[in-house]
């Protein structure tokens, strides 16, 4: 385990994998119908279930109330993919249970009472599921989880019924995108029961050609099947992206990567958008062995996000952020 943006292996097309399990407590209204008192009760029930467990995984987790986290840090957590934007906005009375390396985070009373999330770097859905499942077992053993023999785990939205499992893979597909691939395949992907969205999930634009592929079907399918199928579809994307990369003119791609490297190394003002597109080139460069001295491009990418910058350097205007971003990137490269 570790930060998803600081992988042990080389940066590649599959950036990270995420497993999310949605669970609820029986006989309690779902969060959108709950009052503050009910929310607190659920928070404490789950906190105690984890605290009273002998499982070694549970010992690594700590309970944090969202009201104790400053606004900038809350949104920086969204940029690090730990919590959802909605959760950062509606933080009142909410709480999380989180591991030190942030690879495990349980959001309490987001859309469902319990949302277990496990992040891993690269294409490692199976490993992420094993961790999520172990935490789920702790909760299912000690809490009265809403479950129906016909419909499985009961969730607020019918799209999560059954396994309550969402398996997502973050993919860097610049050449697939440049060749019009995403739009071409989107209908097929939907028909197969998958969805592909921007980096920050639902309704977001793809930044730096980074996409999120996730399964849509949760009923009438086992967790193993869902994970295997998602992995398979992700692998197909990876293969296509690799094929496009192999077709490239070596000199031209080297030129493109090194130009972007040059800009990032020398820029004095750097907007978030420009950084995104330049980092896309850097990532291709690392993947093809053209750029060798950058180990964690996603770590650079994430740390240059607006709230992550403000978390480090204090609150500032967008203009000052662009200057600070350029300075930081120069020092990192």
């Amino acid at each position: 385990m570790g930060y998803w943006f600081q992988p042990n292996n080389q940066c590649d097309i599959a950036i990270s994998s995420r497993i999310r399990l949605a669970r609820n407590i029986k006989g309690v209204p779902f969060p959108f119908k709950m009052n503050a008192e009910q929310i607190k009760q659920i928070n404490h029930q789950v906190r105690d279930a984890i605290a009273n467990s002998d499982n070694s995984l549970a010992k690594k987790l700590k309970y944090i109330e969202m009201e104790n986290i400053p606004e900038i840090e809350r949104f920086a957590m969204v940029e690090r993919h730990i919590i959802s934007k909605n959760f950062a906005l509606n933080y009142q009375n909410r709480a999380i249970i989180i591991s030190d390396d942030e690879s495990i985070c349980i959001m309490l009373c987001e859309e469902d009472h319990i949302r277990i999330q496990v992040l891993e770097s690269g294409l490692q859905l199976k490993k992420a599921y094993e961790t999520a499942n172990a935490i789920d077992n702790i909760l299912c053993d000690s809490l009265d989880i809403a479950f129906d023999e016909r419909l499985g785990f009961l969730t607020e939205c019918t799209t999560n019924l059954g396994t309550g499992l969402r398996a997502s893979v973050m993919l860097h597909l610049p050449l697939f995108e440049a060749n019009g691939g995403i739009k071409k395949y989107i209908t097929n992907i939907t028909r197969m029961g998958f969805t592909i969205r921007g980096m920050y999930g639902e309704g977001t634009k793809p930044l730096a050609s980074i996409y999120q592929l996730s399964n849509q079907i949760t009923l009438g399918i086992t967790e193993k099947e869902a994970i295997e199928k998602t992995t398979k579809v992700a692998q197909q994307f990876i293969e296509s992206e690799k094929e496009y990369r192999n077709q490239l003119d070596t000199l031209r791609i080297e030129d493109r990567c090194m130009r972007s490297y040059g800009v990032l190394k020398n820029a004095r003002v750097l907007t978030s958008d420009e950084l995104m597109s330049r980092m896309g080139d850097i990532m291709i460069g690392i993947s093809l062995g053209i750029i060798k001295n950058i180990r964690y491009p996603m770590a650079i990418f994430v740390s240059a996000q607006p709230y992550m910058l403000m978390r480090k350097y204090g609150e500032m205007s967008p203009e000052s952020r662009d200057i600070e971003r350029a300075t930081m990137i120069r020092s990192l490269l």
Partner: protein
Amino acid sequence: MLCEKCGVNNATTHIRTVVKGVVCDKYLCFSCATSEGFKSKELSQIMSALLGEESNNQNSKIARCACCGSTVAEIAKSGKCGCSECYNTFYDQLLPYLKKSQFGKTRHDGKLIQKIKRIQQSKEEEIEELKYLLKKSVLEENYEKAAVIRDKIKELKEET
């Protein structure tokens, strides 16, 4: 059309009387209709009373989830259930929505929670036991007992 009685005002009230199969239509203005005993106030009162009663009836007929108070219409509109009990209360009505959102699938095939696993395991064990007794009863030619056991096995299989 002018009022049949006064011939001055516009006819706003249509009165149809049927006496021994003979239909008689009258088209009157508001004041003539009132003087003939068809008071609009009473009519409107009757109508509102009728409608009111009906809408009250409708209200009491609309099924609500005992746990969170949600109705099927609310769930269908928002795509959100109010609580886990909604699925039990409105199972039949929700099934078409589930089918739509889950690519036609309606039956869970994934993980079971331990408590349910234990119940299912004990049911399976019971079925095995009954199968053994069924075989024994047939061998003993005790067909009445065998039929009872057969039905019990069928029942348990349907539950699992």
